[in-house]
Protein backbone atom coordinates (compact mmCIF):
# COMPACT_ATOMS: atom_id res chain seq x y z
CA UNK A 1 0.00 0.00 0.00
CA UNK A 2 2.62 2.51 1.09
CA UNK A 3 4.87 1.73 -1.86
CA UNK A 4 2.06 2.37 -4.35
CA UNK A 5 1.08 5.64 -2.66
CA UNK A 6 4.72 6.71 -2.82
CA UNK A 7 4.88 5.94 -6.55
CA UNK A 8 1.63 7.77 -7.36
CA UNK A 9 2.76 10.82 -5.35
CA UNK A 10 6.18 10.66 -7.00
CA UNK A 11 4.68 10.73 -10.50
CA UNK A 12 2.51 13.71 -9.56
CA UNK A 13 5.56 15.44 -8.10
CA UNK A 14 7.50 14.90 -11.34
CA UNK A 15 4.48 16.08 -13.35
CA UNK A 16 4.10 19.26 -11.27
CA UNK A 17 7.84 19.99 -11.59
CA UNK A 18 7.73 19.58 -15.39
CA UNK A 19 4.64 21.81 -15.59
CA UNK A 20 6.31 24.57 -13.53
CA UNK A 21 9.64 24.30 -15.32
CA UNK A 22 8.22 24.50 -18.87
CA UNK A 23 5.32 26.79 -17.81
CA UNK A 24 2.78 24.45 -19.46
CA UNK A 25 -1.02 24.94 -19.31
CA UNK A 26 -1.50 21.18 -18.82
CA UNK A 27 -1.81 20.51 -15.07
CA UNK A 28 0.95 18.57 -13.29
CA UNK A 29 -1.26 15.57 -12.36
CA UNK A 30 -2.20 15.05 -16.04
CA UNK A 31 1.51 15.00 -16.94
CA UNK A 32 2.00 12.52 -14.06
CA UNK A 33 -0.78 10.37 -15.56
CA UNK A 34 0.90 10.36 -18.98
CA UNK A 35 4.30 9.48 -17.47
CA UNK A 36 2.85 6.65 -15.37
CA UNK A 37 1.03 5.31 -18.43
CA UNK A 38 4.27 5.35 -20.43
CA UNK A 39 6.10 3.54 -17.60
CA UNK A 40 3.37 0.89 -17.46
CA UNK A 41 3.59 0.32 -21.22
CA UNK A 42 7.40 0.15 -21.16
CA UNK A 43 7.38 -2.48 -18.39
CA UNK A 44 4.57 -4.47 -20.03
CA UNK A 45 6.48 -7.66 -20.75
CA UNK A 46 8.92 -7.55 -17.85
CA UNK A 47 9.36 -10.70 -15.76
CA UNK A 48 11.04 -8.90 -12.87
CA UNK A 49 9.07 -9.96 -9.77
CA UNK A 50 9.67 -6.65 -7.96
CA UNK A 51 8.15 -4.66 -10.84
CA UNK A 52 5.16 -6.96 -11.42
CA UNK A 53 4.40 -7.02 -7.66
CA UNK A 54 4.59 -3.21 -7.52
CA UNK A 55 2.27 -2.91 -10.52
CA UNK A 56 -0.27 -5.15 -8.82
CA UNK A 57 -0.07 -3.01 -5.71
CA UNK A 58 -0.57 0.21 -7.71
CA UNK A 59 -3.62 -1.33 -9.38
CA UNK A 60 -5.24 -2.11 -6.01
CA UNK A 61 -4.54 1.37 -4.62
CA UNK A 62 -5.66 3.12 -7.82
CA UNK A 63 -8.94 1.23 -7.91
CA UNK A 64 -9.56 2.26 -4.31
CA UNK A 65 -8.90 5.98 -4.96
CA UNK A 66 -10.85 6.07 -8.25
CA UNK A 67 -13.76 4.30 -6.53
CA UNK A 68 -14.23 7.44 -4.43
CA UNK A 69 -13.54 9.97 -7.19
CA UNK A 70 -16.88 11.73 -6.59
CA UNK A 71 -16.05 12.42 -2.93
CA UNK A 72 -12.95 14.40 -3.93
CA UNK A 73 -15.09 17.07 -5.64
CA UNK A 74 -17.09 17.87 -2.50
CA UNK A 75 -14.73 20.44 -0.85
CA UNK A 76 -14.39 22.55 -4.04
CA UNK A 77 -18.10 22.07 -4.79
CA UNK A 78 -19.05 23.52 -1.42
CA UNK A 79 -16.99 26.57 -2.42
CA UNK A 80 -19.09 26.91 -5.55
CA UNK A 81 -22.32 26.99 -3.55
CA UNK A 82 -20.86 29.47 -1.03
CA UNK A 83 -19.62 31.78 -3.81
CA UNK A 84 -22.62 31.66 -6.14
CA UNK A 85 -23.01 35.42 -5.60
CA UNK A 86 -20.12 35.84 -8.06
CA UNK A 87 -22.67 35.17 -10.78
CA UNK A 88 -24.50 38.34 -9.66
CA UNK A 89 -27.75 38.70 -11.59
CA UNK A 90 -26.82 36.25 -14.32
CA UNK A 91 -27.84 32.97 -12.59
CA UNK A 92 -30.53 31.90 -15.02
CA UNK A 93 -28.64 32.89 -18.15
CA UNK A 94 -25.42 31.17 -17.04
CA UNK A 95 -27.24 28.01 -15.93
CA UNK A 96 -29.18 28.00 -19.20
CA UNK A 97 -25.99 28.17 -21.27
CA UNK A 98 -24.36 25.43 -19.16
CA UNK A 99 -27.41 23.19 -19.44
CA UNK A 100 -28.00 23.44 -23.18
CA UNK A 101 -24.38 23.47 -24.24
CA UNK A 102 -23.36 20.56 -21.97
CA UNK A 103 -26.27 18.29 -22.87
CA UNK A 104 -25.86 19.03 -26.60
CA UNK A 105 -22.08 18.46 -26.44
CA UNK A 106 -22.59 15.06 -24.76
CA UNK A 107 -25.19 14.06 -27.35
CA UNK A 108 -23.16 15.31 -30.33
CA UNK A 109 -19.87 13.71 -29.23
CA UNK A 110 -21.37 10.31 -28.34
CA UNK A 111 -23.42 10.12 -31.54
CA UNK A 112 -20.45 11.10 -33.71
CA UNK A 113 -18.16 8.55 -32.06
CA UNK A 114 -20.73 5.76 -32.31
CA UNK A 115 -21.31 6.48 -36.02
CA UNK A 116 -17.55 6.39 -36.76
CA UNK A 117 -17.09 3.18 -34.74
CA UNK A 118 -19.97 1.52 -36.59
CA UNK A 119 -18.49 2.56 -39.94
CA UNK A 120 -15.21 0.92 -38.97
CA UNK A 121 -16.96 -2.25 -37.85
CA UNK A 122 -18.83 -2.49 -41.17
CA UNK A 123 -15.59 -1.94 -43.02
CA UNK A 124 -13.83 -4.64 -41.01
CA UNK A 125 -16.64 -7.11 -41.72
CA UNK A 126 -16.47 -6.48 -45.47
CA UNK A 127 -12.79 -7.35 -45.44
Amino acid at each position, binding site marked *: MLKSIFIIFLFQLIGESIQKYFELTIPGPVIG*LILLLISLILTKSTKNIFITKTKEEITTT*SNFIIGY*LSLLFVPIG*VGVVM*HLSYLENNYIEVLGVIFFS*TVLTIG*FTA*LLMEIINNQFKKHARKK
Partner: protein
Amino acid sequence: MLEKNKLYTIWVYLQAEPLFWLTLTIGAFLVGDYLYKKSKLNPLVNPVAISILLVASILIATGISYERYFNGAKFIHFMLGPATVALAIPIYKQIHLIKKETTSIFISLIAGSLFAIFSTYFFAKLMKLDIEIIYSMMPRSVTAPIAMGISELIGGVPSLTAIITILTGIVGASFGTFALDILRVKDMTARGFAFGLASHGIGTARAMSRNETAGIFAALALGLSGVATSIIIPLLFKLINF
Protein backbone atom coordinates in the same frame (compact mmCIF):
# COMPACT_ATOMS: atom_id res chain seq x y z
CA MET B 1 -25.49 26.45 32.16
CA LEU B 2 -22.11 24.93 32.84
CA GLU B 3 -22.92 21.97 30.55
CA LYS B 4 -23.90 24.27 27.71
CA ASN B 5 -20.69 26.22 28.20
CA LYS B 6 -18.69 23.03 28.00
CA LEU B 7 -20.39 21.98 24.77
CA TYR B 8 -19.62 25.39 23.32
CA THR B 9 -15.98 25.05 24.29
CA ILE B 10 -15.81 21.67 22.58
CA TRP B 11 -17.43 23.13 19.43
CA VAL B 12 -14.99 26.04 19.36
CA TYR B 13 -12.13 23.55 19.60
CA LEU B 14 -13.53 21.12 17.02
CA GLN B 15 -14.45 23.62 14.31
CA ALA B 16 -10.86 24.86 14.26
CA GLU B 17 -9.51 21.35 13.59
CA PRO B 18 -9.54 19.36 10.30
CA LEU B 19 -10.98 16.22 11.97
CA PHE B 20 -14.48 17.67 12.25
CA TRP B 21 -14.63 18.89 8.64
CA LEU B 22 -13.17 15.68 7.25
CA THR B 23 -15.71 13.59 9.17
CA LEU B 24 -18.53 15.88 8.05
CA THR B 25 -17.46 15.72 4.38
CA ILE B 26 -17.16 11.93 4.35
CA GLY B 27 -20.42 11.58 6.29
CA ALA B 28 -22.29 13.87 3.88
CA PHE B 29 -20.86 11.90 0.95
CA LEU B 30 -21.94 8.56 2.47
CA VAL B 31 -25.49 9.97 2.74
CA GLY B 32 -25.36 11.14 -0.90
CA ASP B 33 -23.92 7.84 -2.07
CA TYR B 34 -26.52 5.86 -0.09
CA LEU B 35 -29.37 7.83 -1.71
CA TYR B 36 -27.73 7.43 -5.16
CA LYS B 37 -27.52 3.64 -4.76
CA LYS B 38 -31.01 3.49 -3.23
CA SER B 39 -32.35 5.31 -6.33
CA LYS B 40 -30.73 2.61 -8.50
CA LEU B 41 -28.12 5.05 -9.82
CA ASN B 42 -30.67 7.63 -10.98
CA PRO B 43 -28.53 10.39 -12.55
CA LEU B 44 -30.68 13.11 -10.97
CA VAL B 45 -29.76 11.84 -7.49
CA ASN B 46 -26.16 12.97 -7.96
CA PRO B 47 -24.10 12.04 -4.87
CA VAL B 48 -21.71 14.99 -5.34
CA ALA B 49 -24.55 17.52 -5.52
CA ILE B 50 -26.29 16.05 -2.46
CA SER B 51 -23.16 16.08 -0.29
CA ILE B 52 -22.25 19.61 -1.44
CA LEU B 53 -25.70 20.90 -0.48
CA LEU B 54 -25.58 19.08 2.89
CA VAL B 55 -22.19 20.54 3.84
CA ALA B 56 -23.07 24.01 2.51
CA SER B 57 -26.32 24.15 4.51
CA ILE B 58 -24.44 23.19 7.68
CA LEU B 59 -21.88 25.94 7.02
CA ILE B 60 -24.61 28.51 6.40
CA ALA B 61 -26.57 27.36 9.49
CA THR B 62 -23.53 27.59 11.79
CA GLY B 63 -22.08 30.71 10.18
CA ILE B 64 -18.72 29.03 9.53
CA SER B 65 -16.77 30.58 6.65
CA TYR B 66 -15.89 28.49 3.58
CA GLU B 67 -12.22 29.24 4.14
CA ARG B 68 -12.33 27.65 7.61
CA TYR B 69 -14.14 24.60 6.22
CA PHE B 70 -11.76 24.22 3.30
CA ASN B 71 -8.77 24.49 5.60
CA GLY B 72 -10.01 21.27 7.22
CA ALA B 73 -11.38 19.51 4.15
CA LYS B 74 -8.37 20.29 1.95
CA PHE B 75 -6.91 16.85 2.66
CA ILE B 76 -9.77 15.35 0.65
CA HIS B 77 -9.34 17.99 -2.05
CA PHE B 78 -5.62 17.18 -2.15
CA MET B 79 -6.35 13.62 -3.28
CA LEU B 80 -7.71 14.93 -6.62
CA GLY B 81 -4.12 15.13 -7.92
CA PRO B 82 -3.11 11.55 -7.00
CA ALA B 83 -6.52 10.32 -8.26
CA THR B 84 -5.77 11.90 -11.64
CA VAL B 85 -2.40 10.13 -11.79
CA ALA B 86 -4.10 6.87 -10.74
CA LEU B 87 -6.37 7.07 -13.82
CA ALA B 88 -3.32 5.79 -15.75
CA ILE B 89 -4.15 2.27 -14.48
CA PRO B 90 -7.65 1.81 -16.00
CA ILE B 91 -6.47 3.49 -19.23
CA TYR B 92 -3.52 1.06 -19.40
CA LYS B 93 -5.84 -1.91 -18.83
CA GLN B 94 -7.98 -0.92 -21.84
CA ILE B 95 -5.14 0.13 -24.12
CA HIS B 96 -6.10 -2.53 -26.73
CA LEU B 97 -9.58 -0.99 -27.04
CA ILE B 98 -8.10 2.51 -27.29
CA LYS B 99 -5.69 1.39 -30.03
CA LYS B 100 -8.61 -0.13 -31.94
CA GLU B 101 -10.58 3.14 -31.82
CA THR B 102 -7.73 5.63 -32.28
CA THR B 103 -9.26 7.30 -35.34
CA SER B 104 -12.72 7.76 -33.85
CA ILE B 105 -11.20 8.97 -30.57
CA PHE B 106 -9.16 11.60 -32.38
CA ILE B 107 -12.03 12.88 -34.58
CA SER B 108 -14.54 12.89 -31.68
CA LEU B 109 -12.00 14.68 -29.48
CA ILE B 110 -11.43 17.56 -31.91
CA ALA B 111 -15.06 17.86 -33.08
CA GLY B 112 -16.46 17.48 -29.56
CA SER B 113 -14.09 20.06 -28.05
CA LEU B 114 -14.88 22.57 -30.81
CA PHE B 115 -18.60 21.90 -30.33
CA ALA B 116 -18.32 22.56 -26.58
CA ILE B 117 -16.46 25.85 -27.12
CA PHE B 118 -18.64 27.22 -29.94
CA SER B 119 -21.98 26.15 -28.44
CA THR B 120 -21.00 27.87 -25.19
CA TYR B 121 -20.10 31.04 -27.11
CA PHE B 122 -23.29 30.87 -29.18
CA PHE B 123 -25.69 30.37 -26.25
CA ALA B 124 -23.87 32.95 -24.11
CA LYS B 125 -24.17 35.53 -26.92
CA LEU B 126 -27.84 34.61 -27.29
CA MET B 127 -28.33 35.31 -23.56
CA LYS B 128 -26.50 38.65 -24.01
CA LEU B 129 -23.98 37.89 -21.26
CA ASP B 130 -21.04 40.25 -20.67
CA ILE B 131 -17.94 39.42 -22.69
CA GLU B 132 -15.96 38.84 -19.48
CA ILE B 133 -18.43 36.16 -18.40
CA ILE B 134 -18.40 34.63 -21.91
CA TYR B 135 -14.59 34.33 -21.81
CA SER B 136 -14.84 32.79 -18.33
CA MET B 137 -17.35 30.23 -19.66
CA MET B 138 -15.57 29.10 -22.83
CA PRO B 139 -13.13 26.57 -21.27
CA ARG B 140 -15.78 25.24 -18.83
CA SER B 141 -15.94 21.66 -20.18
CA VAL B 142 -12.40 20.70 -19.10
CA THR B 143 -11.10 19.93 -15.63
CA ALA B 144 -11.06 22.97 -13.27
CA PRO B 145 -7.29 23.62 -13.05
CA ILE B 146 -6.92 23.63 -16.87
CA ALA B 147 -10.10 25.67 -17.35
CA MET B 148 -8.88 28.31 -14.88
CA GLY B 149 -5.52 28.55 -16.61
CA ILE B 150 -7.12 29.04 -20.04
CA SER B 151 -9.61 31.56 -18.64
CA GLU B 152 -6.81 33.70 -17.26
CA LEU B 153 -4.96 33.52 -20.57
CA ILE B 154 -7.92 34.83 -22.64
CA GLY B 155 -9.11 37.53 -20.22
CA GLY B 156 -11.74 35.67 -18.21
CA VAL B 157 -12.11 35.57 -14.42
CA PRO B 158 -10.55 32.31 -13.10
CA SER B 159 -12.69 32.11 -9.93
CA LEU B 160 -15.84 32.53 -12.02
CA THR B 161 -14.54 29.82 -14.36
CA ALA B 162 -14.08 27.47 -11.37
CA ILE B 163 -17.74 27.91 -10.37
CA ILE B 164 -19.00 27.48 -13.94
CA THR B 165 -16.78 24.42 -14.48
CA ILE B 166 -18.03 22.60 -11.37
CA LEU B 167 -21.65 23.41 -12.31
CA THR B 168 -20.94 22.01 -15.79
CA GLY B 169 -19.71 18.75 -14.22
CA ILE B 170 -22.85 18.38 -12.10
CA VAL B 171 -25.18 19.26 -15.02
CA GLY B 172 -23.41 16.79 -17.33
CA ALA B 173 -23.47 13.99 -14.74
CA SER B 174 -27.14 14.62 -13.96
CA PHE B 175 -28.61 15.16 -17.44
CA GLY B 176 -26.17 13.59 -19.91
CA THR B 177 -27.67 10.12 -19.50
CA PHE B 178 -31.08 11.38 -20.69
CA ALA B 179 -29.59 12.92 -23.84
CA LEU B 180 -27.78 9.66 -24.67
CA ASP B 181 -30.90 7.57 -24.02
CA ILE B 182 -33.03 9.83 -26.25
CA LEU B 183 -30.40 9.55 -29.01
CA ARG B 184 -30.21 5.78 -28.38
CA VAL B 185 -26.42 5.69 -28.16
CA LYS B 186 -25.55 2.14 -27.06
CA ASP B 187 -21.77 2.12 -27.61
CA MET B 188 -20.29 2.28 -24.09
CA THR B 189 -16.99 3.72 -25.32
CA ALA B 190 -18.87 6.59 -27.04
CA ARG B 191 -21.13 7.25 -24.03
CA GLY B 192 -18.19 7.38 -21.64
CA PHE B 193 -16.03 9.48 -23.96
CA ALA B 194 -18.78 12.11 -24.31
CA PHE B 195 -19.18 12.32 -20.52
CA GLY B 196 -15.47 12.89 -19.90
CA LEU B 197 -15.17 15.37 -22.76
CA ALA B 198 -18.17 17.54 -21.82
CA SER B 199 -18.23 17.29 -18.03
CA HIS B 200 -14.66 16.38 -16.92
CA GLY B 201 -14.08 14.66 -13.54
CA ILE B 202 -17.63 14.76 -12.17
CA GLY B 203 -18.95 13.29 -15.43
CA THR B 204 -16.15 10.69 -15.32
CA ALA B 205 -17.10 9.71 -11.77
CA ARG B 206 -20.70 9.21 -12.90
CA ALA B 207 -19.59 7.07 -15.90
CA MET B 208 -17.27 4.99 -13.66
CA SER B 209 -20.15 4.18 -11.32
CA ARG B 210 -22.29 2.89 -14.20
CA ASN B 211 -19.98 0.91 -16.48
CA GLU B 212 -16.25 0.14 -16.42
CA THR B 213 -15.63 0.62 -20.16
CA ALA B 214 -17.58 3.90 -20.14
CA GLY B 215 -15.59 5.04 -17.11
CA ILE B 216 -12.26 4.34 -18.77
CA PHE B 217 -13.20 6.21 -21.94
CA ALA B 218 -14.47 9.08 -19.79
CA ALA B 219 -11.09 9.22 -18.03
CA LEU B 220 -9.35 9.13 -21.39
CA ALA B 221 -11.50 11.99 -22.73
CA LEU B 222 -10.95 13.97 -19.52
CA GLY B 223 -7.18 13.93 -20.06
CA LEU B 224 -7.24 14.35 -23.85
CA SER B 225 -9.83 17.17 -23.94
CA GLY B 226 -7.89 19.04 -21.28
CA VAL B 227 -4.83 19.01 -23.50
CA ALA B 228 -6.80 19.68 -26.73
CA THR B 229 -8.81 22.59 -25.32
CA SER B 230 -5.75 24.28 -23.85
CA ILE B 231 -4.31 24.28 -27.38
CA ILE B 232 -7.53 25.03 -29.32
CA ILE B 233 -8.85 28.05 -27.37
CA PRO B 234 -5.66 30.18 -27.44
CA LEU B 235 -5.31 29.25 -31.13
CA LEU B 236 -8.90 30.32 -31.87
CA PHE B 237 -8.28 33.64 -30.16
CA LYS B 238 -5.34 34.25 -32.48
CA LEU B 239 -7.38 33.36 -35.58
CA ILE B 240 -10.80 34.87 -34.77
CA ASN B 241 -11.73 38.11 -33.04
CA PHE B 242 -14.34 36.97 -30.52
